């Protein structure tokens, strides 16, 4: 039983850290994607996907550290708001880029 408790506490300390670091890795991947991908759409893909997952893992890691339900719910809310905002802004940027492409090809032909 005692050994089980220590195992739990060790796990407890590591789960949060792992989640936060994993979130950071996603941010890094997203940034590399933003810098290295060839066109706007792939860049948007890298940015939003990575940020969503990165922030999600970060919040999850922080939720693990808190004992307060209110803080946990606030962190969850932050993630959900960021998800919505990034999804819609990504959609608007992509939509505008598509429109620009269409009008520029029309002008050429």
């Amino acid at each position, binding site marked *: 039983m005692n050994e089980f408790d220590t195992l739990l506490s060790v796990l407890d300390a590591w789960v949060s850290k792992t989640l936060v670091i994993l979130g950071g890795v996603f941010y890094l991947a997203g940034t590399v994607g933003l810098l290295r991908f060839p066109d706007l759409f792939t860049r948007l893909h890298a940015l939003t996907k990575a940020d969503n997952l990165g922030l999600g893992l970060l919040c999850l890691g922080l939720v693990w550290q808190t004992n307060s339900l209110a803080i946990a719910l606030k962190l969850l809310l932050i993630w959900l*708001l960021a998800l919505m905002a990034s*999804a*819609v802004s990504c*959609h*608007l940027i992509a*939509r*505008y880029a598509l*429109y620009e492409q269409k009008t520029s090809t029309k002008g050429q032909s």
Partner: protein
Amino acid sequence: MSDWVFDGLLGTGLLLLGWQTLISRDLFRSIIWFVVLGLLMTLCWVRLAAPDVALAEAAIGAGVTGALLLNAYRALLIDKPPRHPSSVVARHRQTTAWAVGLAAFSTIVVGGISWALLNLPQAGVDLGTLVRSRLAESGVSNVVTAVLLNFRGYDTLLEVAVLLLALLGVWTVHPKDETFSEASSDFAQNSPLVGALLHLLAPLLVLIGAYLLWIGAYAPGGAFQAGAVLAAFGVMLYLSGRLTPTPTATFSLKLLLIFGPGVFSLIALAVMFWGGALLEYPKDWASLLILAVETGVTISIAVTLVLLVSGSPGLKRTYQ
């Protein structure tokens, strides 16, 4: 140790971002750098244990100012399309001498002020201790709100008036006969996602605004932060075409604009009837009066900020 590394990164990042904002040749890029600078500045305020300032910086410094700058940039683009890069470079060289001169002048001024500050005699009273020892009299338990709305209420009253003056200034320089262009593009209007996002955010933003206003008495928050959150919602409505500019302001809109400064001034004067000085709230009524002032100011700040972004005298609802 890790604190030092983090703070060092933050400070260096701040300086680099400030530098980028200033030297960037592309105006649009400068604006983006400025917004990022505001976000990093927010983190700096958090590190300095000033969450009230951090909230204000995030909401007003980065958020609303960013929207304001981007809107101004858009207006510039409509006015005159971007110039040929070479003419910009030529102008750059011309202004370099001016910039160097200005930089030298600013350095001397900042140096002089710093020198004067360093040589200031030690203050007779420790203001922090003084505020804390008399916090119970202020009617609120948040030190920052106690100072802003009670101990130094005069400053805040003038700040609110300055915001109103800024809007009057914008109205004055705006040509009267100009037809206000639609802020939104068809992309934002026709996109089903924007409407859905607004539907989700509307109750949430009102709730967060009210929460910030209420919590200001006990914890970081208050009228400016709450007003900025509500203004953010107004700016979203404006950018997505739900609110369109009008060439004149309706009476009710004007009333909303002066509501905050009006309530503040009336209360400031009214307390004199109870034998106090200007803005000296009676002790038992202090918390209620502060809440009344903050509520009024929140509404006016929100409306003023939205009108600053739209740059028009009025706004009207447009039904989709």
